[in-house]
């Protein structure tokens, strides 16, 4: 049996039974121009199930962006494998199916806006699938409704706030009807309101539509919104658990160069002042209800 056939059979067997995303011993090395290389990912084994809401955190340069770009084949493994919905990213013919099932939103809201109005931008993905105009219209309208931008359909990008542009990008990802959306620091260039709206949108997509979310973020407060949290340091996943478990590791967090969610920090200071508070208050809501 040829290698290609073997891979194909493996894909058939695995459908359904296997996790939605599966990384096996994934490494990635960037070749440097003057010779040499940067080993950005150093052997990652990881699975993500359908319907999960996962936050990925880690210091600058730890390999978060490199990791997520493997999940829709923007980057291909130096060694190891990436399986998405039973398809191997290294298989050229799988690439377009994978990109239909895994949407991606990037950091800069301005630079991922392809078209000159909201609705045309949202249509870009499904247009690439060659869908007929009626179907495009339906998908655009549905996606805009899910992110709450229906009234902005004909607005040009320069008349939108950063948060609205990011939600347009989310709608653009939704329009191909993906099972999973990956966001690489989508809120880092937004104001507080834009951040809150974007996060609310993600939460409702996860809860109401069952869409798998992988959120790369620098904000520990945002990470507490997830049900599972991954910490990356120097190309490795060093911690994987619920936010409560991860933030419960005190000293190690400091070694990794990570901060604490603001609620946790406030609770710590209040305890220093002699207040009796329970452990594991991750969100401001939890803190508030413990105090009142």
């Amino acid at each position, binding site marked *: 049996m040829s290698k290609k056939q073997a891979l194909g059979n493996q894909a058939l067997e695995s459908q359904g039974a296997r996790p939605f995303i599966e990384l096996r011993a994934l490494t990635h090395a960037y070749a440097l121009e003057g010779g040499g290389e940067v080993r950005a990912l150093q052997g990652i084994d990881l699975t993500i199930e359908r319907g999960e809401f996962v936050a990925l955190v880690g210091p600058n340069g730890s390999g978060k962006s490199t990791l997520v770009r493997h999940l*829709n084949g*923007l980057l291909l493994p130096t060694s190891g494998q990436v399986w998405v919905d039973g398809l191997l990213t290294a298989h050229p013919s799988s690439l*377009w199916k994978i*990109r*239909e099932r895994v*949407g*991606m939103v*990037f950091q*800069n809201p*301005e*630079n*991922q*806006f*392809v*078209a*000159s*109005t909201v*609705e*045309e931008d949202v*249509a*870009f*993905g499904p*247009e*690439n*699938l*060659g*869908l*007929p*105009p009626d179907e*495009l*219209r339906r998908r*655009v309208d549905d996606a805009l409704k899910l992110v709450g931008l229906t009234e902005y359909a*004909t*607005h*040009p*990008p*320069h008349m939108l706030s950063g948060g609205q542009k990011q939600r347009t*990008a989310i709608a*653009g*990802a939704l329009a*191909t009807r993906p099972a999973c959306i990956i966001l690489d620091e989508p809120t880092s260039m937004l104001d507080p309101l834009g951040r809150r709206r974007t996060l609310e949108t993600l939460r409702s997509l996860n809860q109401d539509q069952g869409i798998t979310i992988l959120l790369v973020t620098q904000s520990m407060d945002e990470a507490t919104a997830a049900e599972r949290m991954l910490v990356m340091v120097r190309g490795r996943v060093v911690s994987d658990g619920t936010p409560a478990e991860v933030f419960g590791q005190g000293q190690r967090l400091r070694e990794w160069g990570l901060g604490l969610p603001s609620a946790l920090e406030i609770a710590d200071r209040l305890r220093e002042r002699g207040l009796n508070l329970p452990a594991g208050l991750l969100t401001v809501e939890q803190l508030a209800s413990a105090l009142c």
Partner: protein
Amino acid sequence: MSLLLPGMHVAGGTPLHRLDPRVKMGASLLLMVLPFVAPSLPSNLLLAGFVVALAILSAVPLMALVRTLRVVVWTGIFMFVFRLFTTPGTPLLTVGGISVTLQGLGAGAVQIYRLCLLVVVSSLLTYTTSPAQLAHGVEAVLEPLARLGLPVREFAMVLTIALRFVPTLFEEIEKIVKAQEARGALIRTGPLWKRVPGWVPVFVPLFVSAFRRAEDLATAMEARGFRSAHQRTHLYRLHLTRHDLAASLLILALGAVILFVEWRMG
């Protein structure tokens, strides 16, 4: 909105906004060419009147139109002066062997009129037509060339993206200019010979960021499943309505009347 540049279209519901982009592009072309084939005064009064009527119909903000015209003011003055001195005819005034002629005055005025017409007509086109519609129209008009193997769809895609980034680049220029002025650079004030070097530190960061944008955009397009312009479909379908037919007939009638007038006037 300060200028009527391509990409700075404003959605609206006027009859001009609703016309098919192909009809609008054809009509604009005709309106820009007519003054060259029809030099007589009556034809041009008719033409100018027609364009003014279109401007009113499009509800274009007058101030924006005036500001857009101001952009070509220097070009206009240059063309006027050039014509003034180079057209042979009855001298009105002679300075050092070069004379201003009566015919030169007329020819200069005609140049300015043509330039204004060009700017107003193209402004109206971009004001009433979204960049996507423009690009789609260009693609439809050039479709026959695609059959000869020319990359028409790719060209339309490039045009769409270029038009999309016009406002972004203008915002960026504005931002950089302000930053440089805050450091004391003379860019928008001061004598011309001091202003020109002031623009260098504006364009360098502009290019750097444009390359960054291009790279990000290419990644985002790839992530959204872009392969080639070929198997793509369009959200908008172009179809000619009765409205478009009527507009086409009207503009053709105008052309016919003007040609008739020219013919009668010899």
